[in-house]
């Protein structure tokens, strides 16, 4: 019944996230024909410097459907939104619950605190996995509608990257929710951290190699270098470490 309770407590976040990400994926596919019509105009845009370089790069990528999908979805939209919703799913620990009273009811049950957290984390991570897989599969399913195809192998590979790197923000929010008793601060702080990391990678090009978002977008895989196993495992390790600290926090907490 703990699983059911976790579901009841996270279903709106999950469902909204699912709809948003799937709409985003669908939108990317549907926009492709229109984007293709605009392509010939690109060389006439004269923007120099960093911005110009990026526009030209995006245009270059969009020459192939696969490149287009990567640059719009995994490289951008899905990664950003997955970060947001990963953090959302991670915040709101089963023992904070707004008012203390309901937490007391939970704590009066013959269940160890570890188990409470474990079930909650597992349930939410399952939801995160669904959030990572569904939009990717949708890309594969929807592409034929515009006369294109997106391989299921690519879709799943990117799902794996989205999920495993995304767990870092999930775990961060989860850890923060054992420190703050309200629902919003963990999420806002985790998002703030994400923004800071993104800005660092943007402003300091040397750091962009180590950016979590690069891992999340699966850039290495896209560029044909195979899945970034080392980085994915590192992400998983960082997540596990944060969840462990969260469990330790809760274990010695007084209510």
């Amino acid at each position: 019944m703990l699983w059911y309770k976790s579901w009841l407590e996270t279903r709106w976040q999950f469902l909204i996230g699912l709809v948003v990400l799937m709409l985003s994926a669908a939108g990317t596919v549907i926009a492709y024909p229109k984007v293709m019509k605009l392509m010939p105009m690109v060389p006439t845009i004269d923007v120099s410097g960093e911005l110009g370089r990026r526009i030209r790069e995006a245009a270059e990528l969009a020459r192939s459907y696969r490149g287009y999908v990567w640059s719009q979805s995994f490289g951008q939209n899905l990664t950003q939104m997955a970060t947001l919703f990963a953090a959302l799913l991670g915040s709101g620990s089963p023992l904070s619950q707004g008012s203390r009273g309901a937490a007391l009811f939970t704590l009066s049950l013959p269940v160890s605190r570890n188990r409470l957290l474990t079930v909650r984390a597992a349930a939410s991570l399952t939801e995160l996995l669904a959030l990572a897989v569904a939009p990717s599969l949708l890309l594969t399913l929807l592409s034929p509608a515009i006369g294109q195809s997106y391989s299921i192998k690519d879709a799943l590979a990117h799902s794996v990257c989205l999920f495993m790197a995304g767990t870092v923000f999930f775990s961060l929010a989860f850890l923060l929710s054992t420190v703050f008793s309200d629902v919003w601060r963990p999420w806002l702080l985790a998002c703030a951290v994400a923004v800071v990391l993104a800005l660092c990678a943007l402003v300091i090009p040397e750091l962009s190699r180590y950016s979590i978002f690069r891992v999340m977008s699966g850039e290495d895989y896209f560029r044909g270098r195979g899945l970034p196993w080392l980085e994915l495992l590192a992400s998983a390790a960082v997540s596990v470490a944060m969840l462990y600290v969260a469990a330790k926090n809760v274990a010695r907490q007084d209510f």
Partner: protein
Amino acid sequence: MSDRFVIETADLRKNYDGVEAVRGLSLQVSGGSIYGFLGRNGAGKTTTIKVLLGMARPTSGHARVFGLPADAEDASVEIRGRTGFVSEEKELYDYMTGEEMIRFTAPFFPRWRGDLEQRYVHTFELPLDRKVKALSRGMRTKLALLLALCRGAELLILDEPTSGLDPAMTEEVLQALVSHVASEEMTVFFSSHQIAEVDQIADHVAIIDRGRAVVTGALDDLRENFRRIQLVFDGDAPEPAFRAPGVVRVRRKGRVLTVLSSAGAERILDEARALNPVSVDVVPVTLKEIFLETVTAED
């Protein structure tokens, strides 16, 4: 510390952020009793309960339930499997309906009593399809009580069970408790600052003041042992130093000296008569008076 007591604390202390909520509490609750835990707001009742249920760790001292240490994680899980709890605010999961709360709670307790569940749903007239957030406080109390009573528990721990309830519903709750205790083998430990209800259903009582137990014992013994001795003098009442034990409080007002004694009133009387009072009165004392005289004003 023995296994004979269902609940036992020894010099229990608990600090929260530098505030001493419990300052050396020692009490023993025997199986089968209805134990009232009386105290003012902020005296440490809720903190003590939280320690017993493993929600808070003692700063020092010991707490045992069923002979098991309350601060050990595994033991605490076992304790909670045999205990029913209702918190002061009776908060449950807002977003669940009554039915969902029951279906959520029941699987945790292998000894769940479906027969009691049916009975209490009927007696309490609980609207099971309504969400908890739409229930009145009285209804929420009854639902919380049902969830505690149907667990097949040996011990019930209730934090101010009738707070916020009107007199009719208070009586209903007390009646449900009494009825339950009469037919099941169990112990009830409830905190309250309603003296009347402790008077009514408790057979043992502990009065807690500023984190310490100032009075403990069987209620009937307290009623039989506590006495108020009133001495009237010709002139101003003297300031005596009673050597006999059992003097709880002495008040002087003009020509009247009032002594509250917890035991051994005879010896105190002997000393008192040596002061040559004009008249001597000995009367029994109510629990309310005992309470008011033994607790101090809030800090």
